[in-house]
């Protein structure tokens, strides 16, 4: 009993200085800049009666925007998971000219402002743009449709997947692969039964982050999507912005609350995946 108490005390006695100072600074700044403004969204949305709240969310354009945002982000996150895995694999496992340069470009979507990405992609895929011309010959329209929306979301999401998978692949012991070969597994079998399970948590993390980013994305999608209510190409961030410019704050906060809940769930999902992953590596 005494020992337990002692240990508790020892834990409490902090050798390194600065605990109270940094705690004070961190909590104050976090509250002022992040928590209080977000809390005021919550307070305002709680002021709306539940009936009104659901009526606001069930309006056709709001409903469609939710479906568009979630559907397109999901499609884009799936594309990113597939291509991201291939790209990460290629950049880690193979050697070829210009590899370093291509690797450096992966983070372009983090560095390029979303509005710039948005107008460029919109122009490239419009009917007289570089890619749009090709698609027009095939009879396909990309800008101002959901396809264009997905392309823009693939652009913003790709670094999340590649950068999540790359370090895990680098650390992967090649002995596993060799052992599988020796035991007679085909390369495909080796990949799906030996390598893929190791990569799964990282891939899910990247997928979750890309998906979350896609749902809230604004700058890079509003130009290419066309924002037509009729074609259901309005994204949810655009609807919030529209409501803000009509000073419909009740509608905007109701949608914002739902989006906050969605992004919180996705963040939780990513954290659980990461916690499980680290628990597993600690066991090994």
């Amino acid at each position, binding site marked *: 009993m005494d020992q337990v108490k002692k240990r508790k005390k020892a834990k409490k006695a902090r050798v*390194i*200085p*600065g*605990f109270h100072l*940094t705690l004070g*600074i*961190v*909590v104050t700044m*976090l509250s002022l*800049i*992040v*928590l*209080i*403004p*977000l809390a*005021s969204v919550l307070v*305002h949305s709680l002021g709306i009666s539940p009936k009104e709240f659901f009526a606001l969310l069930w309006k056709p354009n709001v409903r469609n925007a939710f479906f568009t945002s979630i559907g397109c982000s999901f499609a884009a996150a799936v594309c990113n998971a597939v*291509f991201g895995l*291939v*790209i990460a*694999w*290629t*950049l880690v496992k*193979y050697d070829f000219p210009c590899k*370093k340069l291509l690797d450096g*470009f992966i*983070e*372009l979507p*983090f*560095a*390029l*402002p*979303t*509005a*710039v990405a948005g*107008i*460029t*992609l919109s*122009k490239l895929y419009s009917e007289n743009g*570089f*890619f749009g011309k090709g698609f027009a010959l095939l009879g396909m329209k990309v800008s101002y449709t959901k396809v264009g929306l997905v*392309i823009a979301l693939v*652009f913003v999401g*790709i670094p999340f997947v590649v950068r999540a998978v790359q370090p895990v692949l680098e650390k992967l012991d090649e002995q596993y692969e060799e052992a599988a070969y020796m035991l007679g597994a085909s390369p495909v079998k080796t990949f799906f039964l030996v390598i893929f399970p190791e990569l799964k948590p990282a891939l899910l993390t990247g997928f979750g982050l890309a998906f*979350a980013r896609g749902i*809230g*994305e604004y*700058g890079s999608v509003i*130009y290419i999507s066309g924002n037509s209510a009729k074609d259901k190409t309005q994204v949810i*961030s655009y609807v*919030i*912005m529209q409501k*803000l410019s009509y000073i419909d*704050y009740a509608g*905007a906060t109701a949608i*914002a609350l739902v989006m*906050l809940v969605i*992004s919180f769930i*996705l*963040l939780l999902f990513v954290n659980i995946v990461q916690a499980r992953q680290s628990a597993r590596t600690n066991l090994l």
Partner: protein
Amino acid sequence: MTEQEKLEKKKKRTKRCCITITVLFITCMLIIPLVSVIVNSLKEGIGFYIRSISTEYVRSALGVTFLATVIAVVINTFFGICAAWLLTKFSFRGKQILATLIDIPFSISPVIVGLAYLMTFGRLGWFYPVIRAFNQFFGTNVRITFAIPGVVLATIFVTFPFVSREIIPVLNAQGKDEEEAAALMGASGFTIFRKITLPQMKWGLLYGIILCTARALGEFGAVNALSKTRGETFTLPLEIDALYMSGTDQSITAAFAASSILVIIAVIILIIRNILERKHIEQ
């Protein structure tokens, strides 16, 4: 053909296939869009390019953008270092929750940030009476929403966890033995920080600052909700939006010309980031 040769051939084919997909994807999705900004911006000739990046509006937007970026980077670096010190050197109750709360701005749509600031400092916000009382008392005309302070605040919000997120893993990997030893030998907090912690986290810190700068320069959604006056409170991305939305061929080219400034900065940021990474690996 033996089994072994077949396998080798298959492996080679997979390799070629993977490299082709990677090169095509990166070229089409990332490199061509980057080049097309520059091509589009020079469509009307170099004279038009220079004229369109030196208009009154673009110059004012550049000023606002740099002001907001510098303030955001300074404040977030200070916060990032404090948060990293707190979260890596001490264990306390609620640490995990605090870490998650710091990461919130990562997963929130920038448009909601704009809305949150309108709800706090705007006419409906609970902070509005405070600002009004302040203005009446001092005879000033301080405004937050639809003014420069709102733009700066929104920029700080969206880049809030960038620095702390980069240095926390670095410091966690280093442990805290050295700091504890230094503290036991009587070094002051600031000396410990300067002599031990700062050199440890140098590369992570620089990388965080770079990322924070990139994001702050390009923030669009959050400031779009909080800034409405072109030529006064518009940042460069907002000015690009205004030019592009005017819809004439000339104004679209001007929008690309203004974008090219940000593209050049983005490329510089990518280069610095790669140099930093290489230095870090060398160490």
